[in-house]
Every structure is written in structure tokens, then in C-alpha cells.
């Protein structure tokens, strides 16, 4: 029991925090605990969850990808151009997803083969991709798509929006992928000890490229959802989205140094961030504060993660 509590301490803490926040918000606003508001929260967090799950894999592999938001923007813009060019929706969406996979894979290739620090590299890539989005759109949004495409953003099966179902499906698939399949095991080892992976005869480069390709695919899926939902592809879409994703992943208990991951933790962290955002909106707090809170929570999560690493190092000595 003690071991179990120790292992899942961060997730238990998050769950408790979420319950407390929910109780406080229920007391403050009678609207909070209504089905309509819960549905709003789920719809608002769905695409953030997809990106955060993708980011969980990347952070578990020992790096971060700061270009995820820019991939969202470029995939959205290119898909929009394809749709305006008369390309059928399934082909345009497939093209967008493939572009996301390719951009992610390029990030992975660059990180693995150039040896440049991932932080600088993905920051530079982010600037370049955002620049391309601005250049091809002239800085203006591309709007008005057919109903078939918009359905992908706002369509529902019963009471549940497609994006919520997509996020739930991606989360469910990611659990066996991370913890019960070779691929996930090697991604974790990439973060745990890359040298051990190489000395075991495993091609580390392949796993570096594919884990970034997965994040690229997740970013492209986010692009489909937000472009369809807003009926507009904006060159500035996805701005700071990677910060939200990293915050959720680290808050959820995935080690910032890699090697350890928690999908359940990421889900809980995305939900708690969504609930806080929703609560602040209900209490008419400015969105500027929401940004501040996200940054603050990231700082606190990183500090907790660092303290854990420090304790382990002391134990190993």
C-alpha cells in the first residue's frame, strides 16, 4: 500500500486537487456542475489532451518539442488551402496529418543526427514553421469551409463531440502503446538511458524519429479540430499550445528527464487545467491571468520533478 501510494503520489495529489477545485467552483457558481458546463469543459480540453498525450511520449523519451504549436498552425493553414483548392475533405485531412507526421519526423531526425540541443532546435523550427504559415497566408486567416469539414470540429455522436471521442480513443490507445508494447518500452528507455538502448542493439534513431512523428500526427489532429471548429485556419493558431501541453505532462508526473511517464497523470492534469480555466471564466477573470496560472503551475511542477530527481540521486550515492 505504502509502495503504491509512493508510486502514484503525484496522480493522487492531482486527483485530490481536482476534487477540491471542483467543490470550490460548485460553491462559487451554480452553473459549474451542470451537464452543459461539463460538456463545455470536455470539448475545450479535448484537443489539448490530444497534444498533451503526444507530448507525454516525447517528454518520456527525454526531450521536449517546442514546435508543436507551430505544427498545428502550418497543418491547419495547408489543409485550409487544400480545401479551398477543391480537394475533397478526406484527402485534405490525410494530407494535413501526413504533413504533421513529416514535420515531427524531421524534428526527430534533426535531434538525433545533429546533436543540437532539442530546446534550441525545436524553438528554431517553431519560428521557421510559424513564419511559413504567416508567409503563405499573408498573416490573414483562411475562412469558410464546407459542412463536411466543419462537422469534424463540432459534430456529435449522441451528446459527445467527435473531438472528445477522438481524445478518449487516442488516450486509450496510448496506454498499451506506452506500457505494454515494445515501441513504448524503447521510447521510455530512450529517456531512461539512451546508451543502454544502443548497447542492447536497438536503433535509437528510429524511436527518436517515430516518437516525434507521433507528436506531429497529434498536432495535425489538433489542427483539424480547431480549424473545423472555428471554421477558420489562422497562422497564429496553436500559439503557446506546447506550453500548455508541457505543463500538463510535467504536472501529471512524467519525468522531465525522461524514462518515466504517466498517461493517467497527463489526463488528470489536462482536466484540472481545463477546470481551472473554466472556473476563472465563470468568475469573469481575465484570460491574461489564465496564462499566468499555466506558467506558474509549470514552474511548480518542474520544481517538484527536480526535487524527486535530487532525492533519487542522493539515494544512489
Amino acid at each position, binding site marked *: 500500500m505504502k509502495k503504491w501510494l509512493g508510486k502514484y503520489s503525484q496522480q493522487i495529489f492531482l486527483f485530490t486537487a481536482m476534487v477540491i477545485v471542483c467543490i470550490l467552483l460548485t460553491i462559487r457558481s451554480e452553473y459549474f456542475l451542470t451537464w452543459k458546463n461539463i460538456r463545455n469543459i470536455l470539448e475545450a480540453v479535448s484537443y489539448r489532451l490530444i497534444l498533451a498525450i503526444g507530448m507525454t511520449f516525447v517528454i518520456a523519451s527525454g526531450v521536449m518539442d517546442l514546435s508543436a504549436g507551430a505544427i498545428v498552425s502550418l497543418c491547419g493553414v495547408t489543409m485550409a488551402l487544400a480545401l479551398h483548392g477543391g480537394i475533397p475533405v478526406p484527402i485534405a485531412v490525410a494530407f494535413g496529418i501526413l504533413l504533421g507526421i513529416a514535420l515531427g519526423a524531421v524534428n526527430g531526425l534533426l535531434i538525433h543526427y545533429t546533436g543540437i540541443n532539442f530546446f534550441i532546435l525545436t524553438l528554431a523550427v517553431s519560428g521557421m514553421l510559424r513564419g511559413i504559415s504567416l508567409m503563405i497566408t499573408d498573416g490573414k486567416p483562411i475562412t469558410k469551409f464546407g459542412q463536411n469539414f466543419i462537422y469534424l470540429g463540432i459534430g456529435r455522436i449522441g451528446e459527445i463531440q467527435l473531438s472528445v471521442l477522438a481524445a478518449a480513443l487516442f488516450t486509450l490507445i496510448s496506454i498499451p502503446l506506452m506500457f505494454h508494447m515494445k515501441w513504448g518500452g524503447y521510447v521510455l528507455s530512450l529517456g531512461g*538511458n539512451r546508451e543502454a538502448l544502443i*548497447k542492447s542493439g536497438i536503433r535509437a534513431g528510429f524511436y527518436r524519429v517515430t516518437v516525434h512523428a507521433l507528436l506531429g500526427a497529434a498536432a495535425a489532429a489538433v489542427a483539424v479540430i480547431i480549424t473545423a471548429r472555428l471554421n477558420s485556419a489562422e497562422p497564429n493558431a496553436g500559439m503557446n499550445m506546447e506550453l500548455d501541453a508541457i505543463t500538463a505532462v510535467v504536472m501529471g508526473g512524467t519525468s522531465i528527464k525522461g524514462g518515466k511517464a504517466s498517461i493517467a497523470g497527463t489526463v488528470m492534469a489536462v482536466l484540472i487545467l481545463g477546470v481551472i480555466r473554466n472556473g476563472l471564466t465563470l468568475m469573469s477573470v481575465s484570460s491574461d491571468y489564465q496564462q499566468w496560472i499555466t506558467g506558474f503551475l509549470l514552474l511548480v511542477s518542474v520544481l517538484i520533478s527536480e526535487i524527486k530527481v535530487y532525492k533519487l540521486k542522493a539515494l544512489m550515492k
Partner: protein
Amino acid sequence: MSTDTQKPIVEMRHVKKAFGYVRALEDMNFSAYAGEVTAIVGDNGSGKSTLIKILTGCIKPDAGEIWIKGKCFFSLTVKQSMKEGVTAVYQDLALDNCKDCAGNIFLGRELMKYGILLDHVQMRRKTEELLRSLHISIPDITQPVEKMSGGQRQALAIARAVYAGGDIFIFDEPTSAMGMKETARIMKLFMELKKEGKTIILISHNLFQVFDISDRICVIHNGRFVDSFLTKDSSPQKLHKLIVEKEEELSDEKMAW
């Protein structure tokens, strides 16, 4: 034990390796025989670890030939080396500290169920059996390796090598973090492997351990082959003298420059 007419299982001929301006190996020659423990001794920075990393495919040599069981290679990949039966315990142990015992023992050779899913239960069971058969005591095999002691980690790395099988075992400072009891157990294991006809290459700074277990000693110094002889023809004092003399020669060369 081999005679000099016996063919070596592993042979390195005129192998060279430089890292930028640093020449780690210069014209290195080395042989190891089946059913023998060959110890590689030399001072820090003499090129011992580079030599074994070339043999395991972690590093590509700049020149020279590597012969394994009569096959010639100019360089090896890790996979090729494993295919030829080479298994290593590295000085850094090459363990994934975030994984548990089973995760490390089966890294790269996982047991699967339904074709795609990892069989965690079977891997844990086999890990328990393996550790028990090797008399390795790890109270909780489900805890991550980072929470284990240095000796337990070394024992785990050795268990992984034994599980991997192969017939050429390389051990780089395998017992440096172990207590006397654990070291004795590992030495016994080496003798058992030797009896089975396996080739063992041992790197150790502990000259008494080297004399205790090895059949042949290869001395290297400053990236060069110095001498190779049967252990029974030497003594720790003689070997120590040889290493110190080489060290002094090098200092004289540096002074002359």
C-alpha cells in the same frame, strides 16, 4: 586451457582508433581463447574500454581486423557482435535506471504475448528464476534499478549477460561495487562459464582477482599492446612491475619531448 597451437576465438589485429587528436588505440593486437579467462590489464586511459567497445560494435575502429570464430570483420555493429555470440557487461553497466529488473534483463529480447503485447508476468517470473539460479539477492525486483545499490546493479548487469547467452563474455570491472561475498559468487560463476567452454574477457584493476581467475593476461599501455602471457608464468608483483616500467618509459618519452 588452450595451448599455443589452439586457434583464438577472438582476435584483433593491428586495430587503431583515434578520437580527434587523442589516439586511444595504436596497433592493438589481442587474442582470447575458448574455455579461458583472458584478462586485459593496463592503467587508466590505456584503451581497455575502447578495445571492448570495438569488439561489441559500439565503436567503429579506424583500421585493423577483428576476427571472431574465424570470420573477419573490419568493423562490427552491436547487432552483428551479438549475432556472433558476444555479450558484454560494461563499466557503466548500460542499465535503464527507470526500468525494473525484468525490464533491463529483457531489454532488446522481450517476451511477447499475442504477438504484440509485452508479457510482463512471464518476464518477471523468468527474472526471479534467473536471479535465484545465480544466487543474486534483490529483495524487490519490481523496483526501478535507480533505487538499487551499486552491487545489486552490477549483479543485475551480469545476470542480463548470462541470460543473453552467447559464447564470448566480456566483463569490464564487473565486481568493483560488490562486497566480498558477492564477488566470490561472481568469480564462481565465471569458473562455471569457463567450464562450459565459454570465452571470457575480463577487465579488472584488481590484480589479485586477475591472478585468481584468469588463464592468460594481456597487458596494454597507452593504446598499445605490450605483452601477453599465461597467468601461471607470472605473478602480481611481476605484472605490477611491468605496468610501472611502461608508465616510466612514457614519462621519459614526454620529458624528452
